[in-house]
């Protein structure tokens, strides 16, 4: 039994995989968290599991990357680098794995080359296995990452994003694998990235077999999701046909859209005579025993709809986007339209847009377009900025065929041929001035940022800067267990909370009364380590913040826009106010950019005139009908 330990050179890892009979398992804790708990599993819980996970003998622990870098800072208030360092302290043996979106890194749109290289270099200090993909399987989009991972001596795991349909043949994937190997060489693990959990067990078995026939010395890592409840079947066929590594998760937390339980995979494959190399089943079981009790605190982040979704074979949404899509539907009040969106419109849009792979950021484009098509009534009538970019080829070429001309016309306008000619093609993004970015971050946080802070800032400028300020004010909040950090509705008077601080010291906080002062301030009394502390709060204002307004419907918003009163067309965040007060604008000029569901959409002026008032600012979250700005019509 050969366990592969952290620190092993990439070449030795691959050699070991080539020689070893049996298969290895990756614990995809991050993907589980993202698919079934909206990425909210806290470092606190991962640290509880750390010791037994390290003992279990996994090939790797997939614990960072994807949307987690963003959510770590935005919601979990933990530094993604610190997370890796703390876990490494408790997990000396296991390799850490990331999921990298190639040119999109850990964000949603392409980054300049120098940012990509800088980011990979910093993360490669802690990450041993780099699973890298591109949603169009466009290999040049991954070049820079491959190179930097190689330079850092870490293991490249390029992905073949997998989907189904007439174009998705073995021949296509074998050829694509060849394209990848031409760039990376053969000391890699090649990932079949089945983010939707698509296809039958037989289909996956055939694909693995085809790849192994052509590239017998390249180890295959099969990654799947259990959305239809049948990923164990696909895993079995993958291993039977020669896959070296497969993905699973701790059974105490397995849900519906993430990976299947490790233990089920191991037990099933035993029957076929395959042994999980280096795996200690007792430690796998122990991990779930240790963290089982914590699951109750994450219930609020589980999907609105419970149960497997075998219809994923129709709509093809990736497991990582299931939870958030259903949440948007619930919040947007269109859960009842979901059958139509998921089972009719989404497959139709998918086909119309070239049958590419439904994974970030491509999955968001498909989803947003399908939702808009159904809710607005007019198909492609309200295209997002990202759909426009897709048609312009900014992300890369369509893999199989281009959309029909009428779609280009709808999205790019009647002169779409000219637009395509002038603006089309893969976006060449100029390098950023990192010294300037460093300076701008220093200005915001008041101290000289570290390289790691700068990397995080380059990924998500606003949210990273906000997070650093949070860290300064509140310290290392990741020490709080989910029972405290995620508590809703306040605590009970007399409730005792305990936690260990960053340095390992145990603290006790007892909740006291929260009286209202005559000054209109409320006080919260806490007994902190036996001593009373008082925290004063200004009572909440009855009025909402600027930009808040009654929700308006689409017609009302359009009517107002024609009167020069520009409102938010949907529920989203202001990314940019594109004009200044006093600026003259024409019909169709962009006045702001909004972001919702990870997609950016321009807000265009309906009239010609002068901007006379700006009510919203960058970062404001607006409801449909929230005030953005005012334009006075030219007389």
């Amino acid at each position, binding site marked *: 039994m050969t366990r592969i330990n952290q620190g092993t050179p990439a070449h030795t890892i691959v050699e070991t995989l080539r020689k070893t009979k049996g298969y290895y398992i990756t614990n995809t804790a991050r993907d589980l968290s993202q698919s079934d708990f909206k990425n909210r599993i806290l470092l606190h819980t991962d640290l509880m599991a750390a010791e037994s996970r390290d003992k279990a003998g996994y090939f790797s622990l997939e614990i960072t990357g994807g949307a987690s870098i963003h959510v770590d800072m935005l919601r979990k208030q933990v530094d993604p680098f610190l997370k890796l360092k703390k876990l490494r302290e408790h997990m000396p043996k296991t390799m850490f794995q990331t999921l990298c979106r190639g040119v999109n890194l850990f964000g949603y749109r392409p980054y300049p080359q120098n940012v990509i290289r800088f980011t990979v270099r910093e993360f490669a200090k802690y990450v041993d296995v780099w699973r890298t993909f591109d949603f169009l399987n466009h290999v040049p989009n991954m070049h820079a990452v491959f190179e930097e991972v190689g330079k850092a001596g870490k293991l490249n795991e390029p992905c073949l994003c997998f989907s189904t349909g007439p174009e998705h043949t073995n021949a296509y994937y074998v050829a694509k694998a060849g394209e990848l190997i031409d760039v990376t060489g053969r000391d890699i693990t090649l990932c079949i990235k089945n983010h939707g959990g698509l296809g039958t067990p037989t289909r996956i078995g055939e694909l693995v077999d085809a790849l192994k026939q052509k590239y017998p010395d390249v180890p295959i890592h099969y990654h799947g999701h259990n959305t239809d409840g049948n990923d164990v079947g696909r895993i079995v066929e993958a291993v039977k046909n020669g896959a070296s590594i497969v993905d699973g998760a701790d059974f105490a937390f397995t849900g519906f859209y993430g990976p299947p339980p490790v233990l089920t995979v191991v037990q099933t494959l035993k029957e076929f005579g395959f042994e999980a190399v280096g795996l200690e089943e007792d430690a796998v079981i122990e991990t779930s025993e240790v963290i089982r009790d914590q699951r109750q605190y994450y219930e609020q982040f589980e999907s609105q709809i419970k149960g497997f979704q075998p219809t994923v074979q129709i709509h093809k949404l990736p497991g990582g986007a299931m939870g958030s899509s259903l949440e948007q539907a619930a919040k947007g009040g269109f859960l009842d339209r979901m059958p139509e969106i998921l089972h009719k419109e989404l497959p139709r849009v998918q086909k119309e847009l070239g049958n590419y792979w439904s994974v970030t950021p491509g999955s968001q484009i498909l989803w947003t377009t399908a939702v808009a098509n159904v809710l607005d009534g007019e198909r492609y009538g309200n295209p997002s900025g990202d759909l426009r970019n897709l048609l312009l080829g900014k992300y890369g070429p369509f893999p199989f065929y281009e959309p029909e001309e009428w779609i280009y016309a709808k999205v790019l306008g009647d002169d779409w041929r000219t637009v395509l000619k002038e603006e089309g093609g893969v976006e060449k993004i100029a390098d950023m001035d990192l010294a300037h970015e460093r300076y701008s971050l220093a200005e915001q946080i008041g101290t000289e940022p570290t390289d790691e802070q700068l990397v995080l800032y380059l990924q998500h400028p606003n949210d990273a800067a906000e997070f650093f300020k949070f860290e300064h004010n509140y310290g*290392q909040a990741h020490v*709080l267990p989910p029972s405290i950090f995620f*508590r*809703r509705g306040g605590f009970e008077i007399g409730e005792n909370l305990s936690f260990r601080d960053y340095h390992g010291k145990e603290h006790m906080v007892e909740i006291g009364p929260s009286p209202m002062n005559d000054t209109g301030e409320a006080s919260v009394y806490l007994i902190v380590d036996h001593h009373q502390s008082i*925290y004063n709060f200004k009572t909440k204002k009855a009025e909402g913040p600027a930009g808040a307004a009654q929700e308006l419907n689409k017609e009302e918003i359009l009517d107002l826009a024609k009167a020069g009163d520009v409102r938010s067309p949907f529920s989203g965040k202001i990314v940019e106010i594109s004009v200044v007060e006093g600026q003259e604008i024409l019909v169709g000029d962009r006045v702001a950019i909004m972001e919702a569901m990870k997609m950016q959409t321009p807000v265009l002026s309906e009239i010609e005139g002068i901007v006379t008032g700006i009510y919203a600012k960058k970062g404001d979250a607006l409801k449909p009908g929230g005030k953005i700005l005012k334009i006075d019509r030219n007389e």
Partner: protein
Amino acid sequence: MKILVANRGEIAIRIIRAIQELGHEAVAVYETPDEMSRHIRIADEAILLGDGPRCDYLNIEKIIRAAKRSEACAIHPGYGFLAENPFFAKACAAAGLVFIGPTTEVISNLGNKVIARKIMAEAGIPMVPGTTNLKQGKEGISEALAFAAQYGYPIMLKATSGGGGRGIRRIESDAQMKEQIPVARAEALAAFNDDSVYLEKVVINPKHVEVQILADSQGKTVHLGTRDCSIQRRNQKLIEIAPSMIKNQKLLDEICETAVRAAKAANYLNAGTVEFLIDKDQNYYFMEINTRVQVEHTVTEMITGIDIVRNQINIAFGKPLSFSQEDVQIRGHAIEVRINAEDPKNDFMPEGGKKVSVYRSTGGFGVRLDGFVYQGYIIPEVYDSLLVKLTVHGFTWDETVGRLKRCLQNFAIRGPKTTIPFYENIAREKDFVNGDFDTSYIETHPHIFYYDEDTSEVGKLARLIAEIHYAKENPYAA
């Protein structure tokens, strides 16, 4: 027997404790803004003097009347207010009350800088070159310019009746001298009802070293060793240590002996402090004698084990000192910091008017607290900003600094900003830790002003918990 304490705040409590320990009863007095003050609760009796502020604590007649009414037989003036007012001592004697302090004559002589300098000069005590009272008008100015020509600038222009850092200005040129003498006179007249001024040569960046004296009515005068009060801001002491860190025992012994000689020359009675400046070349110069118990007397008590206030009372009642100079042993080191309700970052702006929402003090071996505030106390805006004096004692200097640091970390005062984080920085600062500081310390170490108000990890997290609790709709669970 009853003794009236004509003071407020921490020193009133310090004195009340000594009175009660001697088996007597203590009578407190107070002004209306002080009605929440703890010294009133601790005393056996308390008498309201009036609405103040400050004027009733300074009203000799009202205080004598309060003593009579409560049938007290003696008055302890503490420091500040009437402590060094010869008329008060005189009024006490006239009313048949024992004044716990020096005689009227001593207070009067030593309170006048020029007479004091004359007495000391006659006794051969080394002094900073200086003038007698400058003559009025043009004559005085030419006298001053002649002095400057002889000794050079900078020169201190001092109000003869000033003290406690007030009525002092530094003069750098002839032009400034001409301009400032009339200004200083006008100011002194308003503040001390005496417009006389004199000059003194400036000793550049000296150490401020003082000697605690006790003298009984039998003619025995002993010293209790030295204190260093060099760490000051604008002549207001912030940190005091005992004994002086000067590594020249012979010099320190000589200073102590000189202090005893100075006290004897002044016919000194009761507790007093002889202040000296020591320059870079270890020359020492007499500055003044303070005829009161001082704020920083606690550090001397810690290293000698002698209760100065108790001895003050005994001396005032004519008892002889129960020990001789040989019995006075200096053991270890002591540091006192004045924890004030002030914002050091904002030029030590007082934080009066604020409520002490949390008050958590420290304790343990070698720790002494002299304070009067409590959780829920609202700091009156009309008095000084001293909340509590923290005095630590240790066998070695390192131990003492370590204890100071620990105690400051243990302290938690919320509501007003305090000098605690500022002192924490000093307790970590290299020169202080090495015992190397003079009166320029604060201005030459500006980085001690850089700190965050609340740096404890648990304090930050508790605030987050309070927010999660208060928000109800937890933003992190949204």
